[in-house]
């Protein structure tokens, strides 16, 4: 298995940590992983994105020119990366913020109202995990359970109470596409 993803959005939407947790989950499952952010210079505004590769064999290039999966959390990131998605790939669109249609017809589109669902869970910053839930429901890159396990590893114990919220978010996302 070799899956390459690009996760993109505004700075502050948590796309980088979404990618990180996915990579960490891959590691937990003993897979080869790479994670490369296209870090924002300023803390604010602008687009942020990261490329994640999860594979069962050693990874040559960690760069992702043609992702299997694109997550677009904001309109500019959809516009930027839509053309790069591999033929037959998947796009997860944050329909809370993106009101336009995906133009390409040769890829599968999933509409996920991530902000609204996160708002419903009472924490808008969890929108990224909603998205991740949606991805994992359609592509078994890693198991959802592994994600929670990985979270336990990286979060300080003071934040472990947030794990159930994350579980709910993953589930909410999965429900949308399920």
């Amino acid at each position, binding site marked *: 298995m070799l899956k390459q993803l690009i996760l993109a959005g505004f700075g*502050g939407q948590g796309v980088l940590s979404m990618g990180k947790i996915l990579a960490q989950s891959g590691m937990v499952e003993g897979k080869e992983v790479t994670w490369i952010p296209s870090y924002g*210079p*300023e*803390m*604010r*505004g*602008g687009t942020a994105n990261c490329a994640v590769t999860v594979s069962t064999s050693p990874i040559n290039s960690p760069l992702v020119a043609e992702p299997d999966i694109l997550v677009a959390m904001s309109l500019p990131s959809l516009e930027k990366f839509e053309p790069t998605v591999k033929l037959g790939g998947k796009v997860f669109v944050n329909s809370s913020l993106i009101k336009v249609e995906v133009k390409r017809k040769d890829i599968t589109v999933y509409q996920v109202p991530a902000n609204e669902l996160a708002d419903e869970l009472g924490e808008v910053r969890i929108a990224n995990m909603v998205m991740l839930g949606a991805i994992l429901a359609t592509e078994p890159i890693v198991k959802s359970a592994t994600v929670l396990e990985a979270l336990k590893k990286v979060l300080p114990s003071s934040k472990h109470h947030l794990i159930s919220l994350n579980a709910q978010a993953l589930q909410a996302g999965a429900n949308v596409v399920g």
Partner: protein
Amino acid sequence: MEVVFQRPQALTEEKFSYCPGCHHGIIHRLVAEVIDELGIIDNTVCVSSVGCSVVNYQFFATDAIQAAHGRAPAAATGVKRASPDSIVFTYQGDGDLAAMGTAEIIHAAARNENITVVFVNNAIYGMTGGQMAPTTLKGQKTTTSPYGRDSKREGNPIRVCELLNSLDGPAYLERVSVHDPKHVIRAKKAIKKAFQLQVKGRGFSLVEVLSACPTNWHLSPLASIEWVQKELMAYYPLGVFREAGEVDGEC
């Protein structure tokens, strides 16, 4: 009906790239209003520095150059000496001005270089993600003082106005804040005075603006304002430190 408040001419239409609640935006607006009021938009040169405000040449509708980290006062000196009719201002953060650019700001002040410095002190390196600045308070946690700034290990915060005030050079030094409308008005007066003094050829003026960085302080915009009042202002008292008038009897 008459317009009582609107976007100043000296700002372009470009959306600010700052975080929600970041005071850089307020300070930009004040500078732009002053440029409008003094009618100097056509001969003002903005010298932008390296920090969150690095692309402020996209926001100020004036000529501009982008200077290397810390070196804005030197670059501004070059502009002013070669083009004395220009009104030249630098806009610098605390990392830029009080760490990397320590020598440049001190010598520009000592030379009483006829430029205006807008110094935005948010006690942190905003742009690079919240590292300790020279102005970071004792005990303050940052990504590079994760256990809280300990003066034994990381040294003491630097008070820039007080430092420069020990020099013979500068014409005007004031520290202001923009944490409420009253102080915003006072800040604008200070910025205006700083530019006016330059127009009159009186020399070096610096306005230090205490400023919130909600993102790297990990506080909400409102809580940040409280922190400015309670913590920043306690270590960095507001006030006029130097006024040309005091030195030579006129202003």
